[in-house]
């Protein structure tokens, strides 16, 4: 009798667990989309006045990367922190610039830093999130760095002071990089209410509460600077 009662109890617990799980799975993920309006586009870093140089250095500035922002959930839904396989991303050194200027990745991502210039570069960061120094290496060579902590990493070149970039490391996958017009879309967001933040070149918005409907799309626009 006691064995029968025990099996019945276990069965009921299992059914309840499966049923509750079925409820979650039956909810369809949604998305958050919108636009980040930059009132003032941040200027690219200018080289220091090369007063001690014997001649001018030719360099073309490109501000397109500065138009891009990152939008992310401040607090992620349950299950967002499940471990995933390490992925790779690339931040190139080309024309005395980091390309892309902004990289958004998840923790565990390995970023490769190839040198596509015919001169030396020396990638480094003294950020609390990740301190590293890759030393000097020539064209065609690349060095990897794995980012295991969430946070913002400022990346510089030790030889060319005007070269700088941002790497935003998230512990969840609910973020998106805008296009040059500021448009973004964060997909696969479970239904619920989240605080959403927009970020551009060190400036971030106040957290904005956004409710993602079941299987629907929430719209939210931001203004920065």
């Amino acid at each position: 009798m006691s064995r029968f009662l025990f099996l019945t109890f276990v069965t009921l617990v299992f059914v309840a667990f499966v049923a509750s799980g079925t409820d979650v799975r039956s909810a369809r993920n949604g998305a958050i989309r919108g636009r980040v309006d930059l009132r003032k586009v941040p200027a690219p870093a200018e080289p220091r006045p090369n007063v001690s140089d014997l001649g001018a250095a030719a360099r073309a500035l490109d501000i397109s990367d500065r138009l891009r922002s990152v939008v992310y959930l401040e607090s992620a839904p349950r299950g967002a922190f499940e471990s995933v396989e390490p992925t790779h991303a690339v931040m190139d050194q080309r024309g005395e610039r980091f390309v892309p200027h902004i990289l958004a990745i998840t923790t565990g991502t390995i970023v490769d830093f190839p040198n596509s210039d015919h001169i030396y570069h020396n990638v480094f960061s003294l950020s609390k999130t990740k301190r590293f120094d890759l030393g000097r290496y020539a064209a065609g060579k690349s060095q990897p760095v794995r980012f295991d902590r969430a946070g913002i990493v400022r990346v510089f070149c030790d030889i060319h002071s005007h070269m700088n970039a941002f790497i935003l490391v998230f512990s969840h996958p609910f973020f998106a990089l805008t296009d040059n017009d500021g448009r973004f879309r964060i997909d696969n967001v479970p239904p619920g209410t989240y605080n959403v933040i927009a970020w551009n070149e060190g400036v971030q918005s106040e957290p904005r509460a956004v409710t993602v409907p079941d299987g629907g799309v929430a719209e939210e626009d931001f203004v920065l600077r």
Partner: protein
Amino acid sequence: MPSTLRAALIVSALLGCTVRATAQGLPSEPVAFAGGRVTVSGDITAGFGSDDTGFFNFTDYEHSALRLFRVDLSTSVALNPHFSLLAEIRDENIETLRAYAFYVRVRPWTDRAIDIQAGRVPPTFGAFARRAYAADNPLISYPLAYQYLTSLRPDSLPWNADELLRMRARGWLSNYSIGNTEPDAGVPLVSAFRWDTGVQVHAASAVLDGTVAVTTGTLANPLVKDDNSAPQVAGRVAAHPIPGLVLGLSAARGPFVSSTAARGAVGDGHDRSFTQTAFGGDVEYSRGYYLVRAETIWSEWKLPSLGAPVIDRPVSALSTYVEGRYKLRPGLYVAGRVDHLGFSDIVGSAGPQSWDAPVTRVEVGAGYSLQRNLLLKISCQRNTRDGGRVTESTLVGAQIVYWF
């Protein structure tokens, strides 16, 4: 106020300012105006070091390179793709604000790396003088060739060899009987603390670049206004055959002695004869976490032959240094330099002797970046000299560098 106390106060104030600057977000990059056509950058350096009783690190009679508080502001104004105006003002130890550099840069063809610079222009000769900024120098002191004061002066001349030999190891305050008889500082082989005035042409290709300059002063004595009747001509060729390797050769020649001093010695019309001639070679190689540099400079000065025992041949000096830097971890490096400055012999009443006292300096140090543009350096140097009141000296120093 004692100089040590003043230096300590300056360092404390700078540390306080930099901490506040970090908190308040002072610029870490050049400040740009007018759509990037005007850029302003700055370097602030504060040094605190041992009392240098042997004047090994002095840049003139009053200033030691180990105890220097320096503020540099540099600006570039790009008028159009062909014309730029560049300037740097500098203040040392809160004294006199000076225009260190002030020149116009002309690029006749925007698609060709040929530049003409006119005004108070960067040094053509050698490698170190163009990277004398504190953040570019892994140690605190300067190489001897660029800083150590020999006993020679452009405005004052020794009557004979004995008078020159009496000033051995007295470059920080020498005086002679011809020309300006007031005691004053001598000159280094190449001055890293003043820039010359003139016209400079620079051309560069993928593996080679060359520069020629005509200026008013000389390597040892750069000037704004010429003090004799002929200019100096200097040239440099640098090759960079592979990334990380630079090989440079330099040469310069120009009248060193001022017209007034030359007139006092041998009469009018001879000031072109007393020249400084110099040749230099430099190499830099870097890879991974290390950087190695070496430079050698030979300089010769022609002085008038006057009383006995006569200075019967030009006096010369040869300086060589090797320095290296190795990064131990992000933001932390160690560095060292071995440096020697030797002098040719002349014959005085007591026999042959080098005209100035040879000096050797060994310096080791480390640097730690508190943040990207805030660097703390410490170093220890051992100086030995074959002559003078102080023949050996061990000095320690610390320096903090903030730049934007």
